[in-house]
């Protein structure tokens, strides 16, 4: 290649023609050098620029689709938070009533190259005209959204892919496992032990379980005399093909009575460890590789609120977990390694909420939050709950690696997005009981998917 350049340079052709030809050759040489091409593509920064460049030629596609290149690209240009899906529904009641739930997509400020993505999600959930969609969003991962229909105790899920509107795989509707479990599963459930149910849906046709979506199902209560608050069972229904495979834990014994979490949350770490906050102050872990259940106690001294919305879990890469917890006027981020029984919790972040929320909320608010937290035991319960309702900080969603947290303050305040690393806060939504169709009951962050899935083209 080098010699060809040189030869062309010395050919006795008219100067202008030679120069033009030479220029074309040099461009071809430079862009034909896979190492240089990769560096150029790496610096494109935005995934949408990369995808467009991949359509230039098959050589470019090969360079862009190379897994180690994609890892480098991601490290330099991590996927962005496009917006969030906010669900509104009446609170669950007992016995459950099928209530209507609505979901709306709220875009966040983004660079122009994400306009199309924001428009697609808006069209899918808001009808492109500020409307909303029926259903409760219970999870969102890599561009796929898990919607539960018919309220908290709805019997159907659908998986939606708003960024692929013309995809052949349309919204997939999945019937939830029956409330009355089949005989084999019922045999595994102890009659005197309550059993929590979780459904895990790996994305159809995708081997990588890391992107599986999960939603909590019903909690089987029991009211016999032999009911023991220290024991519970966990059932995990794993979607396979068109059916469900049930994994039921043996009765798990806790050293102290444990309360059910009214807003349980689950994350799947590394496609292997399914971590569930089924009961307060504990994480129930299901290892998908071994089929074993275990439990991990929250960090020493961390006790979460009875309503369960002052904490949430987040993935820490593929091997660890973060517990994000609002303690009084501070937000704490705890880290723990997975798959290591000897691992200990370590507090890695402490965010002073009144400081980061300065200008967003009146200072007196934090005085009440502080008083509630420090005097909790001296108040009578009714008074506590009354005030806790008005002066509480709720966590609605946490990003991977605990990079951001969606919070609400008080009962009908706005939704705030906290950037944990930068310690900045922005108000991203003002809720309104009249317009939303119910109180806010859930937020799912909509991250741009990664990596871009290039169709496998036939080699020619």
């Amino acid at each position, binding site marked *: 290649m*080098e010699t060809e*350049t*040189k030869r062309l*340079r010395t050919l006795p052709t008219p100067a202008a023609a030679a*120069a033009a030809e*030479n*220029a*074309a050759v*040099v*461009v*071809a*040489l*430079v*862009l034909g*050098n896979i*190492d*240089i091409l990769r*560096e*150029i*593509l*790496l*610096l*494109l*920064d*935005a*995934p*949408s*620029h*990369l*995808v*467009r*460049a*991949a*359509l*230039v*030629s*098959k050589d*470019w596609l090969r360079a862009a689709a190379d897994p180690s290149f994609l890892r480098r690209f991601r490290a*330099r240009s991590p996927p962005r938070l496009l917006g969030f899906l906010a669900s509104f529904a009446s609170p669950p009641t007992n016995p459950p009533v099928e209530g209507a739930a609505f979901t709306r997509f709220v875009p966040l400020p983004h660079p122009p*190259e*994400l*306009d*199309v*993505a924001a428009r*697609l999600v808006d069209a899918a959930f808001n009808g492109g005209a500020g409307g909303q969609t029926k259903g409760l969003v219970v999870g969102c991962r890599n561009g796929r959204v898990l919607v539960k229909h018919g309220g908290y105790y709805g019997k159907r899920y659908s998986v939606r892919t708003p*960024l*692929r*509107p*013309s*995809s052949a795989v349309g919204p997939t509707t999945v019937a939830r496992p029956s409330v009355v479990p089949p005989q084999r599963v019922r045999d595994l459930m102890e009659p005197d032990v309550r059993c929590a149910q979780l459904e895990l849906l790996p994305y159809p046709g995708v081997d990588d379980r890391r992107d599986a979506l999960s939603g909590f199902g019903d909690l089987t209560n029991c009211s016999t005399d032999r009911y023991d608050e220290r024991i519970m069972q966990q059932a995990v229904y794993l979607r396979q093909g068109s059916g469900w495979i049930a994994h039921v834990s043996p009765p798990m014994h806790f050293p102290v009575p444990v309360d059910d979490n009214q807003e349980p949350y689950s994350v799947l770490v590394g496609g292997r460890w399914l971590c569930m906050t089924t009961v307060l102050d504990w994480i129930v872990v299901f290892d998908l590789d071994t089929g074993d259940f275990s439990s991990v106690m929250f960090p020493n001294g961390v006790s979460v609120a009875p309503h369960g919305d002052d904490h949430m879990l987040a993935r820490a890469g593929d091997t660890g977990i973060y517990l994000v917890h609002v303690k009084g006027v501070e937000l704490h981020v705890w880290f723990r390694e997975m798959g290591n029984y000897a691992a200990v919790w370590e507090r890695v972040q402490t965010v002073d909420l009144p400081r980061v929320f300065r200008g967003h909320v009146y200072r007196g608010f934090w005085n009440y939050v502080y008083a509630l937290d420090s005097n909790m035991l001296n108040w009578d319960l009714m008074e506590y709950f009354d005030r806790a309702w008005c002066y509480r900080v709720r966590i609605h969603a946490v990003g991977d690696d605990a990079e951001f947290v969606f919070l609400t303050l008080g009962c009908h305040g706005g939704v705030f997005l906290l950037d944990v690393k930068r310690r900045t806060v922005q108000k991203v939504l003002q809720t309104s009981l009249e317009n939303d169709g119910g109180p806010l009951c859930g937020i799912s962050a909509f991250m*741009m998917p990664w990596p*871009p*899935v*290039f*169709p496998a*083209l036939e080699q020619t």
Partner: protein
Amino acid sequence: MEVDKGKGEAEETRKVAEADRDTVTLKSSDGKLFEVSKEAAARLSTVLAGMIAGGSIDDNGTDLKQIGSEALENVVDYCNKHANSIPSAALISSSISFNTAPFKEPEEWERKFVDRLSHDALFDLVEAANFLGMERLLDVTCHKISEMMKGKSPDQIREVFNIKNDYTKEELEEIRQELAWAFYDD
């Protein structure tokens, strides 16, 4: 900058100077001579560093047969500008491997330096930087080329860089369907 070799200079003086001259002379494929700071050349180019260390620098002009005078002039210009600019902490680590070091955004003068280059001169310079193992210059020039691609449609990129489309219509359509979010209304 072209150097007029001082023919009248005494042989003696030259020999003494050779060992600790603070510049090296480079010769382009078309025979033009350029002088560049030895320190900057050694710091910015792994190939020149190797030549300097190995004593294969020719005082009458080290032959760089692969590099034309226009590109070499830009290389030398870059090295000299670099020698004059106060190196930021970010740039000192330029000896770290091209493939693993995190990219540092071009500094203001580097931006100006590549912005004034013509399309052809830019690509010639990438070739030269690649040949001479000049990681930082390669970064800065590659960055400029990627800037030229941003916001363009595949068709526009092909046109600017004169690249042949080897996709079928169906293949293009398939990718567009799958990754619809990446495409503006083009």
